[in-house]
Protein backbone atom coordinates (compact mmCIF):
# COMPACT_ATOMS: atom_id res chain seq x y z
CA UNK A 1 0.00 0.00 0.00
CA UNK A 2 1.38 3.31 -0.95
CA UNK A 3 -0.22 5.45 1.62
CA UNK A 4 0.25 4.53 5.17
CA UNK A 5 0.93 7.45 7.37
CA UNK A 6 4.70 7.51 7.77
CA UNK A 7 4.34 7.78 11.50
CA UNK A 8 2.31 4.64 11.52
CA UNK A 9 5.04 2.46 10.19
CA UNK A 10 7.46 3.56 12.82
CA UNK A 11 5.01 2.86 15.53
CA UNK A 12 3.94 -0.58 14.57
CA UNK A 13 6.33 -2.79 16.45
CA UNK A 14 7.83 -5.16 13.96
CA UNK A 15 10.19 -6.63 16.44
CA UNK A 16 8.08 -8.17 19.12
CA UNK A 17 11.07 -9.24 21.17
CA UNK A 18 12.33 -5.71 21.49
CA UNK A 19 9.06 -4.34 22.75
CA UNK A 20 8.21 -7.31 24.83
CA UNK A 21 5.16 -8.64 23.06
CA UNK A 22 3.41 -9.26 26.31
CA UNK A 23 3.38 -5.59 27.06
CA UNK A 24 0.71 -5.16 24.44
CA UNK A 25 -2.87 -5.20 25.47
CA UNK A 26 -5.55 -6.11 23.02
CA UNK A 27 -8.76 -4.49 23.91
CA UNK A 28 -11.92 -3.91 22.02
CA UNK A 29 -13.88 -0.73 22.33
CA UNK A 30 -17.38 -1.59 21.27
CA UNK A 31 -19.74 -2.81 19.93
CA UNK A 32 -21.30 -1.94 23.24
CA UNK A 33 -19.39 1.06 24.34
CA UNK A 34 -20.60 4.38 25.64
CA UNK A 35 -18.88 6.45 23.03
CA UNK A 36 -18.69 4.60 19.79
CA UNK A 37 -21.81 6.30 18.44
CA UNK A 38 -23.76 3.12 18.44
CA UNK A 39 -22.57 -0.27 17.46
CA UNK A 40 -19.10 0.36 16.22
CA UNK A 41 -16.11 -1.55 17.36
CA UNK A 42 -12.47 -0.71 17.43
CA UNK A 43 -10.07 -3.52 18.03
CA UNK A 44 -7.24 -1.69 19.66
CA UNK A 45 -3.80 -2.92 20.57
CA UNK A 46 -2.34 -0.85 23.34
CA UNK A 47 1.16 -0.43 24.55
CA UNK A 48 0.45 0.94 27.97
CA UNK A 49 -2.21 3.35 26.94
CA UNK A 50 -0.69 4.14 23.58
CA UNK A 51 -2.40 2.80 20.52
CA UNK A 52 -0.14 0.74 18.30
CA UNK A 53 -2.81 -0.84 16.18
CA UNK A 54 -6.41 -0.09 15.59
CA UNK A 55 -8.81 -1.96 13.39
CA UNK A 56 -12.31 -0.68 12.93
CA UNK A 57 -14.92 -3.41 12.82
CA UNK A 58 -18.39 -2.65 11.61
CA UNK A 59 -21.43 -4.20 10.10
CA UNK A 60 -23.26 -4.35 13.38
CA UNK A 61 -25.90 -2.14 11.88
CA UNK A 62 -25.83 -3.54 8.37
CA UNK A 63 -29.52 -3.26 7.61
CA UNK A 64 -29.35 -4.21 3.94
CA UNK A 65 -30.59 -0.83 2.85
CA UNK A 66 -29.30 -1.28 -0.69
CA UNK A 67 -30.76 -4.73 -1.11
CA UNK A 68 -34.14 -3.61 0.16
CA UNK A 69 -34.10 -0.60 -2.14
CA UNK A 70 -33.43 -2.78 -5.14
CA UNK A 71 -36.63 -4.61 -4.40
CA UNK A 72 -38.71 -1.52 -3.84
CA UNK A 73 -39.98 1.31 -5.98
CA UNK A 74 -38.09 4.57 -6.29
CA UNK A 75 -40.56 6.27 -4.02
CA UNK A 76 -40.47 3.57 -1.37
CA UNK A 77 -36.75 4.09 -0.90
CA UNK A 78 -37.21 7.68 0.11
CA UNK A 79 -38.25 6.97 3.70
CA UNK A 80 -35.39 4.50 3.95
CA UNK A 81 -32.89 7.21 3.12
CA UNK A 82 -34.04 8.99 6.29
CA UNK A 83 -32.60 6.15 8.24
CA UNK A 84 -29.14 6.30 6.67
CA UNK A 85 -27.68 9.21 8.50
CA UNK A 86 -30.44 9.42 10.99
CA UNK A 87 -29.29 12.72 12.38
CA UNK A 88 -29.65 14.50 9.06
CA UNK A 89 -32.52 12.88 7.22
CA UNK A 90 -33.29 15.89 5.06
CA UNK A 91 -29.89 16.00 3.44
CA UNK A 92 -30.20 12.30 2.67
CA UNK A 93 -33.56 12.99 1.08
CA UNK A 94 -32.00 15.65 -0.99
CA UNK A 95 -29.11 13.51 -2.14
CA UNK A 96 -31.42 10.74 -3.21
CA UNK A 97 -33.86 13.10 -4.88
CA UNK A 98 -30.96 14.75 -6.66
CA UNK A 99 -29.69 11.43 -7.96
CA UNK A 100 -33.10 10.41 -9.21
CA UNK A 101 -33.63 13.80 -10.78
CA UNK A 102 -30.32 13.40 -12.57
CA UNK A 103 -31.29 9.93 -13.66
CA UNK A 104 -34.61 11.04 -15.06
CA UNK A 105 -33.71 14.58 -16.03
CA UNK A 106 -36.16 16.39 -13.81
CA UNK A 107 -36.10 20.12 -13.12
CA UNK A 108 -37.57 21.32 -9.88
CA UNK A 109 -39.37 24.56 -9.13
CA UNK A 110 -37.53 27.43 -7.55
CA UNK A 111 -39.45 27.51 -4.32
CA UNK A 112 -38.68 23.85 -3.78
CA UNK A 113 -35.00 24.61 -4.29
CA UNK A 114 -35.15 27.25 -1.61
CA UNK A 115 -36.98 24.95 0.76
CA UNK A 116 -34.34 22.31 0.16
CA UNK A 117 -31.54 24.72 0.94
CA UNK A 118 -33.26 25.92 4.09
CA UNK A 119 -33.95 22.46 5.39
CA UNK A 120 -30.51 21.21 4.46
CA UNK A 121 -28.78 24.05 6.24
CA UNK A 122 -30.96 23.58 9.29
CA UNK A 123 -29.95 19.96 9.20
CA UNK A 124 -26.34 21.00 9.05
CA UNK A 125 -26.81 23.22 12.06
CA UNK A 126 -28.35 20.57 14.21
CA UNK A 127 -25.93 17.94 13.03
CA UNK A 128 -22.87 20.02 13.82
CA UNK A 129 -24.33 21.15 17.13
CA UNK A 130 -24.96 17.63 18.28
CA UNK A 131 -21.62 16.42 16.93
CA UNK A 132 -19.80 18.98 19.00
CA UNK A 133 -21.97 18.12 21.96
CA UNK A 134 -21.11 14.46 21.63
CA UNK A 135 -17.48 15.31 21.20
CA UNK A 136 -17.33 17.12 24.51
CA UNK A 137 -19.25 14.28 26.06
CA UNK A 138 -16.56 11.92 24.87
CA UNK A 139 -13.98 14.17 26.39
CA UNK A 140 -15.72 13.56 29.66
CA UNK A 141 -17.80 16.66 30.17
CA UNK A 142 -20.74 15.34 32.07
CA UNK A 143 -23.47 16.41 29.79
CA UNK A 144 -23.70 20.16 29.93
CA UNK A 145 -22.42 21.03 26.44
CA UNK A 146 -24.37 18.15 24.99
CA UNK A 147 -27.50 19.30 26.73
CA UNK A 148 -27.05 22.81 25.46
CA UNK A 149 -26.61 21.63 21.92
CA UNK A 150 -29.60 19.36 22.19
CA UNK A 151 -31.58 22.26 23.55
CA UNK A 152 -30.94 24.04 20.27
CA UNK A 153 -31.41 20.90 18.27
CA UNK A 154 -34.88 20.48 19.68
CA UNK A 155 -35.82 23.88 18.38
CA UNK A 156 -34.76 22.86 14.89
CA UNK A 157 -36.49 19.52 15.23
CA UNK A 158 -39.68 21.39 16.08
CA UNK A 159 -39.33 23.18 12.78
CA UNK A 160 -38.85 19.89 11.00
CA UNK A 161 -41.83 18.41 12.72
CA UNK A 162 -44.14 21.23 11.86
CA UNK A 163 -42.98 21.08 8.27
CA UNK A 164 -42.72 17.37 7.67
CA UNK A 165 -44.60 15.78 10.50
CA UNK A 166 -41.68 13.96 12.00
CA UNK A 167 -38.81 15.00 14.19
CA UNK A 168 -36.15 12.85 12.67
CA UNK A 169 -37.44 10.77 9.81
CA UNK A 170 -38.70 13.56 7.64
CA UNK A 171 -39.33 11.78 4.33
CA UNK A 172 -39.95 15.19 2.92
CA UNK A 173 -38.41 15.55 -0.49
CA UNK A 174 -39.74 14.03 -3.65
CA UNK A 175 -38.30 13.72 -7.13
CA UNK A 176 -39.38 16.99 -8.63
CA UNK A 177 -39.75 18.99 -5.46
CA UNK A 178 -41.04 18.61 -1.95
CA UNK A 179 -43.97 16.81 -0.47
CA UNK A 180 -45.90 19.62 1.14
CA UNK A 181 -45.65 23.35 1.13
CA UNK A 182 -44.46 25.30 4.13
CA UNK A 183 -47.16 25.63 6.75
CA UNK A 184 -48.34 29.06 7.75
CA UNK A 185 -45.95 30.92 9.97
CA UNK A 186 -43.15 28.45 9.43
CA UNK A 187 -40.83 30.95 7.86
CA UNK A 188 -41.22 33.36 10.74
CA UNK A 189 -40.59 30.60 13.19
CA UNK A 190 -37.47 29.64 11.29
CA UNK A 191 -36.30 33.21 11.16
CA UNK A 192 -36.58 33.37 14.90
CA UNK A 193 -34.63 30.17 15.40
CA UNK A 194 -31.96 31.39 13.01
CA UNK A 195 -31.79 34.70 14.79
CA UNK A 196 -31.39 33.01 18.17
CA UNK A 197 -28.83 30.50 17.07
CA UNK A 198 -25.75 32.77 17.23
CA UNK A 199 -26.56 33.25 20.89
CA UNK A 200 -26.10 29.57 21.41
CA UNK A 201 -22.86 29.55 19.45
CA UNK A 202 -21.55 32.40 21.56
CA UNK A 203 -22.51 30.59 24.72
CA UNK A 204 -20.78 27.48 23.50
CA UNK A 205 -17.69 29.47 22.68
CA UNK A 206 -17.57 31.02 26.08
CA UNK A 207 -18.08 27.63 27.63
CA UNK A 208 -15.41 25.80 25.73
CA UNK A 209 -13.32 27.86 23.38
CA UNK A 210 -10.70 29.00 25.84
CA UNK A 211 -11.00 26.02 28.12
CA UNK A 212 -7.46 24.83 28.71
CA UNK A 213 -8.55 21.26 29.17
CA UNK A 214 -10.37 21.26 25.87
CA UNK A 215 -7.44 22.88 24.14
CA UNK A 216 -5.05 20.38 25.65
CA UNK A 217 -7.25 17.51 24.67
CA UNK A 218 -7.74 18.63 21.10
CA UNK A 219 -4.80 20.62 19.82
CA UNK A 220 -2.22 18.54 18.07
CA UNK A 221 -4.30 15.41 18.52
CA UNK A 222 -5.26 13.17 15.65
CA UNK A 223 -3.53 15.11 12.96
CA UNK A 224 -4.64 14.28 9.45
CA UNK A 225 -2.33 15.49 6.74
CA UNK A 226 -3.69 17.19 3.67
CA UNK A 227 -2.22 14.56 1.36
CA UNK A 228 -3.61 11.62 3.24
CA UNK A 229 -6.99 13.27 3.49
CA UNK A 230 -7.21 13.63 -0.27
CA UNK A 231 -5.78 10.22 -0.94
CA UNK A 232 -8.21 8.52 1.40
CA UNK A 233 -11.18 10.29 -0.08
CA UNK A 234 -12.10 12.00 3.16
CA UNK A 235 -14.79 14.59 2.70
CA UNK A 236 -16.71 17.13 4.68
CA UNK A 237 -15.51 19.18 7.64
CA UNK A 238 -12.64 16.78 8.28
CA UNK A 239 -11.22 17.37 4.84
CA UNK A 240 -11.58 21.11 5.18
CA UNK A 241 -9.99 21.01 8.61
CA UNK A 242 -6.96 19.53 6.89
CA UNK A 243 -6.85 22.58 4.67
CA UNK A 244 -8.36 21.27 1.46
CA UNK A 245 -10.82 23.66 -0.07
CA UNK A 246 -13.40 21.23 -1.31
CA UNK A 247 -17.00 21.89 -0.55
CA UNK A 248 -19.44 20.32 -2.98
CA UNK A 249 -21.80 23.21 -2.44
CA UNK A 250 -19.11 25.33 -4.06
CA UNK A 251 -17.72 22.76 -6.49
CA UNK A 252 -20.89 21.33 -7.98
CA UNK A 253 -23.07 24.30 -7.16
CA UNK A 254 -25.96 21.90 -7.04
CA UNK A 255 -29.37 23.23 -6.24
CA UNK A 256 -29.13 26.98 -6.00
CA UNK A 257 -26.03 27.26 -3.85
CA UNK A 258 -24.42 29.60 -6.38
CA UNK A 259 -26.92 32.28 -5.35
CA UNK A 260 -25.73 32.53 -1.80
CA UNK A 261 -22.83 34.36 -0.36
CA UNK A 262 -20.99 32.14 2.07
CA UNK A 263 -17.45 31.14 2.85
CA UNK A 264 -15.79 27.83 3.49
CA UNK A 265 -13.73 27.73 6.68
CA UNK A 266 -10.45 25.90 6.36
CA UNK A 267 -8.18 24.50 9.01
CA UNK A 268 -4.44 24.39 8.91
CA UNK A 269 -3.30 21.72 11.31
CA UNK A 270 -5.88 19.08 10.58
CA UNK A 271 -6.16 18.13 14.22
CA UNK A 272 -9.15 17.57 16.41
CA UNK A 273 -9.33 21.20 17.39
CA UNK A 274 -9.44 22.29 13.76
CA UNK A 275 -12.24 19.88 13.05
CA UNK A 276 -14.11 21.19 16.02
CA UNK A 277 -13.57 24.79 15.00
CA UNK A 278 -14.36 24.20 11.34
CA UNK A 279 -17.72 22.87 12.42
CA UNK A 280 -18.31 25.84 14.69
CA UNK A 281 -17.46 28.22 11.86
CA UNK A 282 -19.49 26.27 9.35
CA UNK A 283 -22.51 26.73 11.53
CA UNK A 284 -22.05 30.48 11.32
CA UNK A 285 -21.77 30.26 7.54
CA UNK A 286 -24.89 28.12 7.41
CA UNK A 287 -26.69 30.79 9.35
CA UNK A 288 -25.65 33.26 6.67
CA UNK A 289 -27.05 31.04 3.95
CA UNK A 290 -30.24 30.61 5.93
CA UNK A 291 -30.67 34.31 6.37
CA UNK A 292 -30.32 34.87 2.64
CA UNK A 293 -32.58 32.00 1.71
CA UNK A 294 -35.26 33.05 4.16
CA UNK A 295 -35.08 36.55 2.76
CA UNK A 296 -35.27 35.55 -0.88
CA UNK A 297 -37.62 32.61 -0.90
CA UNK A 298 -40.17 33.09 -3.67
CA UNK A 299 -43.68 31.79 -3.78
CA UNK A 300 -44.78 29.32 -6.36
CA UNK A 301 -45.29 25.62 -6.85
CA UNK A 302 -43.25 23.12 -4.90
CA UNK A 303 -43.56 20.15 -7.22
CA UNK A 304 -42.63 19.61 -10.80
CA UNK A 305 -46.01 18.83 -12.30
CA UNK A 306 -44.69 16.44 -14.93
CA UNK A 307 -43.15 14.05 -12.45
CA UNK A 308 -45.22 11.11 -11.38
CA UNK A 309 -44.89 9.98 -7.82
CA UNK A 310 -46.52 6.64 -8.21
CA UNK A 311 -45.43 4.36 -10.99
CA UNK A 312 -42.25 6.30 -11.55
CA UNK A 313 -40.16 4.59 -14.23
CA UNK A 314 -37.02 6.30 -15.42
CA UNK A 315 -35.36 5.28 -18.66
CA UNK A 316 -32.62 2.70 -18.54
CA UNK A 317 -29.33 4.32 -17.62
CA UNK A 318 -27.37 5.36 -14.63
CA UNK A 319 -26.57 8.45 -12.64
CA UNK A 320 -24.41 9.45 -9.73
CA UNK A 321 -25.64 12.41 -7.73
CA UNK A 322 -23.93 13.87 -4.73
CA UNK A 323 -24.37 16.63 -2.23
CA UNK A 324 -22.42 18.08 0.65
CA UNK A 325 -24.13 16.47 3.58
CA UNK A 326 -23.08 17.61 7.05
CA UNK A 327 -20.73 14.67 7.21
CA UNK A 328 -19.21 14.95 3.78
CA UNK A 329 -19.97 13.83 0.30
CA UNK A 330 -23.18 11.87 0.27
CA UNK A 331 -23.74 10.31 -3.11
CA UNK A 332 -26.32 8.03 -4.61
CA UNK A 333 -25.49 5.86 -7.57
CA UNK A 334 -28.53 4.53 -9.36
CA UNK A 335 -28.82 2.19 -12.29
CA UNK A 336 -32.21 1.94 -13.88
CA UNK A 337 -33.27 -0.86 -16.17
CA UNK A 338 -36.53 0.81 -17.01
CA UNK A 339 -38.53 -0.98 -14.36
CA UNK A 340 -40.20 0.73 -11.39
CA UNK A 341 -37.44 -0.51 -9.11
CA UNK A 342 -33.85 0.61 -9.37
CA UNK A 343 -31.63 -2.13 -10.71
CA UNK A 344 -28.73 -1.01 -8.61
CA UNK A 345 -29.01 1.39 -5.75
CA UNK A 346 -25.85 2.43 -4.08
CA UNK A 347 -25.17 4.89 -1.31
CA UNK A 348 -21.79 6.50 -1.13
CA UNK A 349 -21.65 7.09 2.61
CA UNK A 350 -19.31 9.81 3.81
CA UNK A 351 -19.06 8.25 7.25
CA UNK A 352 -17.72 4.95 5.99
CA UNK A 353 -15.06 6.46 3.82
CA UNK A 354 -14.02 8.99 6.41
CA UNK A 355 -13.35 6.07 8.71
CA UNK A 356 -10.56 4.93 6.41
CA UNK A 357 -8.19 7.32 8.10
CA UNK A 358 -9.20 6.47 11.65
CA UNK A 359 -6.27 4.17 12.23
CA UNK A 360 -3.78 6.59 10.73
CA UNK A 361 -4.99 9.36 12.97
CA UNK A 362 -5.05 7.28 16.11
CA UNK A 363 -1.74 5.45 15.92
CA UNK A 364 0.63 6.57 18.59
CA UNK A 365 -1.94 8.48 20.55
CA UNK A 366 -3.51 7.73 23.87
CA UNK A 367 -6.55 5.53 24.08
CA UNK A 368 -8.54 8.48 25.35
CA UNK A 369 -7.61 10.34 22.22
CA UNK A 370 -8.91 7.64 19.95
CA UNK A 371 -12.34 8.23 21.37
CA UNK A 372 -12.08 11.94 20.72
CA UNK A 373 -10.61 11.48 17.25
CA UNK A 374 -13.32 9.05 16.47
CA UNK A 375 -15.82 11.58 17.70
CA UNK A 376 -14.57 14.24 15.32
CA UNK A 377 -14.98 11.97 12.33
CA UNK A 378 -18.65 12.25 13.12
CA UNK A 379 -19.97 9.00 11.84
CA UNK A 380 -23.45 7.64 12.01
CA UNK A 381 -23.59 3.91 11.95
CA UNK A 382 -26.74 3.85 9.90
CA UNK A 383 -24.72 5.32 7.12
CA UNK A 384 -21.52 3.37 7.67
CA UNK A 385 -23.17 -0.01 7.64
CA UNK A 386 -26.35 0.87 5.74
Amino acid sequence: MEMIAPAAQELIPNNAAATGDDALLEISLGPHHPSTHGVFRMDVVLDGERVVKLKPVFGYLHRNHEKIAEGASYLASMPYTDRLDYIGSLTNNWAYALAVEKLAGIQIPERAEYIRVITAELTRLQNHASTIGFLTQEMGASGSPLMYSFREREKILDLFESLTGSRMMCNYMRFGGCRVDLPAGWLDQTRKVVADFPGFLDEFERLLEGNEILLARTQGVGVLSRELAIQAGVTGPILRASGVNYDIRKVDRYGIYDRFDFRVPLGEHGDVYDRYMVRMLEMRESLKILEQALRDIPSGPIMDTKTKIRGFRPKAGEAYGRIESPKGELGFFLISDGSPNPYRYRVRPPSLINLTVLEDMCLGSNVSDTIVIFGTIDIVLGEVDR
Partner: protein
Amino acid sequence: MNSAFTHIYGPIAILMIAAVGFAIAPLAMAWLWSKKFSPRKPGPVKNATYECGLESNDAFLRFRPEYYLYAIVFLIFDVEAIFLLPFAVAFTGLTVGASIAMLIFLLLLVEGLVWTWRKGVLIWV
Protein backbone atom coordinates in the same frame (compact mmCIF):
# COMPACT_ATOMS: atom_id res chain seq x y z
CA MET B 1 -0.30 1.28 79.28
CA ASN B 2 -3.42 0.04 77.62
CA SER B 3 -5.67 2.56 79.22
CA ALA B 4 -3.93 5.47 77.54
CA PHE B 5 -3.89 3.54 74.33
CA THR B 6 -7.55 2.72 74.40
CA HIS B 7 -8.35 6.20 75.46
CA ILE B 8 -6.78 7.62 72.34
CA TYR B 9 -7.46 4.95 69.80
CA GLY B 10 -10.54 3.32 71.26
CA PRO B 11 -12.97 5.61 69.49
CA ILE B 12 -11.13 5.08 66.23
CA ALA B 13 -11.30 1.35 66.72
CA ILE B 14 -15.00 1.59 67.44
CA LEU B 15 -15.44 3.72 64.34
CA MET B 16 -13.63 1.14 62.27
CA ILE B 17 -15.63 -1.70 63.69
CA ALA B 18 -18.82 0.22 63.10
CA ALA B 19 -17.69 0.94 59.56
CA VAL B 20 -17.11 -2.76 59.03
CA GLY B 21 -20.64 -3.32 60.21
CA PHE B 22 -21.85 -0.53 58.00
CA ALA B 23 -20.25 -2.13 54.99
CA ILE B 24 -21.07 -5.71 55.78
CA ALA B 25 -24.63 -5.26 56.98
CA PRO B 26 -26.14 -4.28 53.65
CA LEU B 27 -24.18 -6.99 51.91
CA ALA B 28 -25.55 -9.46 54.41
CA MET B 29 -29.02 -8.09 53.90
CA ALA B 30 -28.63 -8.42 50.16
CA TRP B 31 -27.46 -11.97 50.68
CA LEU B 32 -30.44 -12.74 52.86
CA TRP B 33 -32.77 -11.22 50.35
CA SER B 34 -31.33 -13.39 47.64
CA LYS B 35 -31.73 -16.43 49.86
CA LYS B 36 -35.31 -15.67 50.73
CA PHE B 37 -36.78 -14.12 47.63
CA SER B 38 -34.62 -13.48 44.66
CA PRO B 39 -32.38 -16.45 44.02
CA ARG B 40 -29.01 -15.78 42.48
CA LYS B 41 -28.71 -17.45 39.16
CA PRO B 42 -25.16 -17.62 37.97
CA GLY B 43 -24.45 -18.87 34.52
CA PRO B 44 -21.56 -19.31 32.13
CA VAL B 45 -22.35 -16.19 30.14
CA LYS B 46 -23.52 -14.08 33.02
CA ASN B 47 -20.42 -14.70 35.04
CA ALA B 48 -18.07 -14.27 32.17
CA THR B 49 -15.94 -11.18 32.11
CA TYR B 50 -17.59 -8.23 30.47
CA GLU B 51 -15.97 -7.12 27.29
CA CYS B 52 -18.21 -4.75 25.42
CA GLY B 53 -20.58 -7.56 24.65
CA LEU B 54 -17.98 -9.71 23.00
CA GLU B 55 -16.79 -13.00 24.24
CA SER B 56 -14.01 -12.29 26.64
CA ASN B 57 -10.66 -13.79 26.19
CA ASP B 58 -8.93 -14.10 29.45
CA ALA B 59 -5.87 -12.12 28.70
CA PHE B 60 -3.53 -11.08 31.40
CA LEU B 61 -2.05 -7.72 30.86
CA ARG B 62 1.10 -6.11 31.93
CA PHE B 63 2.00 -2.55 32.10
CA ARG B 64 4.58 -0.20 30.92
CA PRO B 65 7.41 0.76 33.24
CA GLU B 66 6.14 4.35 33.34
CA TYR B 67 3.87 3.46 36.16
CA TYR B 68 6.82 2.13 38.08
CA LEU B 69 8.91 5.23 37.52
CA TYR B 70 6.14 7.38 38.87
CA ALA B 71 5.79 5.07 41.81
CA ILE B 72 9.47 5.47 42.62
CA VAL B 73 9.29 9.23 42.54
CA PHE B 74 6.17 9.08 44.63
CA LEU B 75 7.81 6.81 47.18
CA ILE B 76 10.72 9.14 47.58
CA PHE B 77 8.50 12.13 48.07
CA ASP B 78 6.28 10.22 50.43
CA VAL B 79 9.30 9.49 52.58
CA GLU B 80 10.27 13.10 52.30
CA ALA B 81 6.86 13.99 53.71
CA ILE B 82 7.65 11.84 56.71
CA PHE B 83 10.61 14.08 57.43
CA LEU B 84 8.81 17.24 56.51
CA LEU B 85 5.98 16.77 58.95
CA PRO B 86 8.08 16.79 62.16
CA PHE B 87 9.98 19.70 60.75
CA ALA B 88 6.76 21.58 60.05
CA VAL B 89 5.54 20.93 63.55
CA ALA B 90 8.74 22.21 65.05
CA PHE B 91 8.99 25.04 62.55
CA THR B 92 7.44 27.72 64.73
CA GLY B 93 10.23 27.32 67.21
CA LEU B 94 13.06 26.85 64.80
CA THR B 95 15.84 29.18 63.84
CA VAL B 96 16.71 30.22 60.36
CA GLY B 97 19.62 27.82 60.45
CA ALA B 98 17.50 24.76 61.11
CA SER B 99 15.11 25.86 58.42
CA ILE B 100 17.98 26.10 56.02
CA ALA B 101 18.95 22.57 56.94
CA MET B 102 15.49 21.53 55.90
CA LEU B 103 15.77 23.61 52.78
CA ILE B 104 18.93 21.77 51.89
CA PHE B 105 17.16 18.50 52.44
CA LEU B 106 14.37 19.67 50.20
CA LEU B 107 16.76 20.94 47.58
CA LEU B 108 18.46 17.58 47.49
CA LEU B 109 15.17 15.97 46.63
CA VAL B 110 14.25 18.71 44.23
CA GLU B 111 17.50 18.05 42.53
CA GLY B 112 16.41 14.46 42.08
CA LEU B 113 13.12 15.71 40.75
CA VAL B 114 14.79 18.07 38.35
CA TRP B 115 17.05 15.31 37.24
CA THR B 116 14.17 13.00 36.51
CA TRP B 117 12.34 15.82 34.82
CA ARG B 118 15.29 16.55 32.61
CA LYS B 119 15.66 12.88 31.86
CA GLY B 120 12.12 12.88 30.58
CA VAL B 121 10.88 10.41 33.14
CA LEU B 122 7.96 12.59 34.02
CA ILE B 123 6.68 12.63 30.48
CA TRP B 124 3.83 10.25 30.21
CA VAL B 125 3.28 8.77 26.82
